């Protein structure tokens, strides 16, 4: 039983407000990713869970116990740092053993626990080495070993994969998912990499500018982004956002009217400026009546990302098959998949105005 709860947490450094009114409920055994651009407050949140920073106001509890005034060593948490923070003068074995030693565990039990952790992470042959004799991936595993050796209630991971090369990162990603499944412990994972968040987390807390923007499953965050920020932050390339006006059952952009189904959006939708969002995979080239010109074609081998320009200069992206022949400068007619349209209020974190129903989730290949 190790729920993690942040209740109305606020953090201020001098006059700078790092976090504002943060409410997060993490269920026991969940793998939650704190995702956002740098400076969004995700690391501060994690450090407050660890007890390395203290909230200016609000309440943090772990396993039902309020830990605001509990020292990091007594919170029953373990943390893996981006820099791994291995003790350089200790061997791998001593590094893993250290937290047990500081908790007064008996030597024989310590030895057994270290061996168990080492076995789980395939570190046995490295136990007598010093950290600087290890590769980045091995150091990463030692840091994990030091975290899991004492069987904490909650694991806190601060961008643990960002110092690894791309290949090792995807390998370690799989390892971490596997580890989480095996241990069944609550894990809180800070990252700015949406791919890590989408693939590993059971729920993602998207943060921006010191505020929680959305806290939901990866699929929900992708398919039903709560606001414009989440829509643009999740997904590569990110969602196209076109500014325009709602006029009856059409959306007017670049002098053209795009038909929209009013019943899919909230009733109070008045007139005025709105933002229409559509993901690149739902932009069809040659299938609609919106004239555009191809500005750039980026072929990644299995797909093409096409930059299109509307008559008023607005640019948007489309995703198509790699096999399709498209030329730069070519004039095309484009259209949007009618079920894949999102409507947002115009400000930067403008609220999404769709009625949330299952129908708004469209399988990607149904285009």
């Amino acid at each position, binding site marked *: 039983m190790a729920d993690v709860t942040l209740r109305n947490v606020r953090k201020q450094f001098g006059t700078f407000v790092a976090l504002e009114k943060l409410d997060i409920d993490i269920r026991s055994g969940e793998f939650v990713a704190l995702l956002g651009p740098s400076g969004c407050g995700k690391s501060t949140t994690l450090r407050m869970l660890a007890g390395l920073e203290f909230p200016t106001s609000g309440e943090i509890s772990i396993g039902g116990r309020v830990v605001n005034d509990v020292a*990091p060593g007594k919170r029953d948490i373990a943390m893996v740092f981006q820099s791994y923070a*291995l003790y350089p*003068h200790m061997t791998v074995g001593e590094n893993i053993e*250290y*937290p047990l030693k*500081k908790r007064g565990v008996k030597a024989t039990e310590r030895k057994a626990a270290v061996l168990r952790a080492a076995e789980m992470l395939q570190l046995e042959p490295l136990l007598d080495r010093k950290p600087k004799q290890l590769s980045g991936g091995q150091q990463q595993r030692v840091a994990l070993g030091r975290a899991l050796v004492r069987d904490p209630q909650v694991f806190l991971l601060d961008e643990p994969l960002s110092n690894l090369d791309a290949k090792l990162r995807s390998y370690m990603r799989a390892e971490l998912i596997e580890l989480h499944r095996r241990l069944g412990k609550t894990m809180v994972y800070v990252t700015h990499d949406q791919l890590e968040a989408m693939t590993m987390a059971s729920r993602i807390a998207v943060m921006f500018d010191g505020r929680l923007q959305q806290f939901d499953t990866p699929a929900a965050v992708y398919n039903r982004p709560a606001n414009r920020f989440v829509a643009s932050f999740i997904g590569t390339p990110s969602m196209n956002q076109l500014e325009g006006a709602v006029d009856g059952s059409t959306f007017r952009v670049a002098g053209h009217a795009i038909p929209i189904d009013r019943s899919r959006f909230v009733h109070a939708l008045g007139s005025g400026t709105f933002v229409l969002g559509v993901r690149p995979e739902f932009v069809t080239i040659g299938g609609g009546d919106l004239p555009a010109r191809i500005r750039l074609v980026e072929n990644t081998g299995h797909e093409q990302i096409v930059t299109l320009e509307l008559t008023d200069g607005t640019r948007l992206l489309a995703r198509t098959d790699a096999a399709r022949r498209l030329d730069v400068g070519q004039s095309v007619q484009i259209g949007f998949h009618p079920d894949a349209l999102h409507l947002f209020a115009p400000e930067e974190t403008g609220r999404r105005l769709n009625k949330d129903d299952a129908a708004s989730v469209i399988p990607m290949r149904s285009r």
Partner: protein
Amino acid sequence: MSATATNTPRLERAYARLGVLLIAPTILVFSLVIVYPLLAAIYLSVFSIYTPTLQGNFVGADNYVKLLTGHEFWNSLGVTLVWTFGTLTLQIVFGVGMALLLHQNIWFRSLARSLVLFPYFLSTVVAVLVWRWLFNDLYGAMNHGLMQLGILDMPLDWLGSMPNAMIGVILVGAWKYFPFVVIAVLARLQTIPEHLYEAARIDGAGPVARFWDVTMPQLRNVLTVIILLRAIWDFKEFDLIYLLTGGGPVTSTQTLSLLVYQEAFGLNRMGQAAAYSVGMMLVMLVFMVLYIRRTGKES
């Protein structure tokens, strides 16, 4: 392939010639001010020489026989070791302590960091004059203060009797040179990653454990170098002791440097002084070899 084989060496030879040319001035100056005096000292040490005229006779190993059989050299060696060990220990303890204090986020930190260097930058003559005034048995502030506090009943003769004179010299030496330790240790402290302390806190280490498990291992290398360097410098310290006690009472604070000076310019026996200085150099060679091996290993 053959073109590169013939061309590259020629260019390399040109670079090598330039290199020799560039280090030549240094080698020349080094030879004049270090190598020549060293050889001259060894040369002088086998003569009996009257200092004012620099005239004398070849006496072979006589000066060295006197060094080994007489008690002056061994007495001074003992004094030098007591002084070096005493003052160095205090320098390290206070230096590391002060560095740890100044590494904390305290409000007067930047001011304190400049002030702590004051003794190190102060001219030895000035510093010693102030300390002699503090130590004075008739009107010194030290005795006055200690008596006011009730620690002393009677004024103490600080620099004129033993072991007070040695304690006084060691204290002034520690005061004068601990800032060097502070600077070196503080510089190292600032490079210890904060994450290590955070990891240790999460691992359950308290402040004392964090000092021994994180700080000390990181300071070990820099402390070894500091100790060796300061040991070499303290071992040959002259002006501070000479000005403070002149080696007295009698010879109880007469270190090897003072002995050499006394022999050469007090007793006008330059040959014997040269022999003592060669003996002193051999002792210091031990420290120097350790230092060179240590720093060589790091690079």
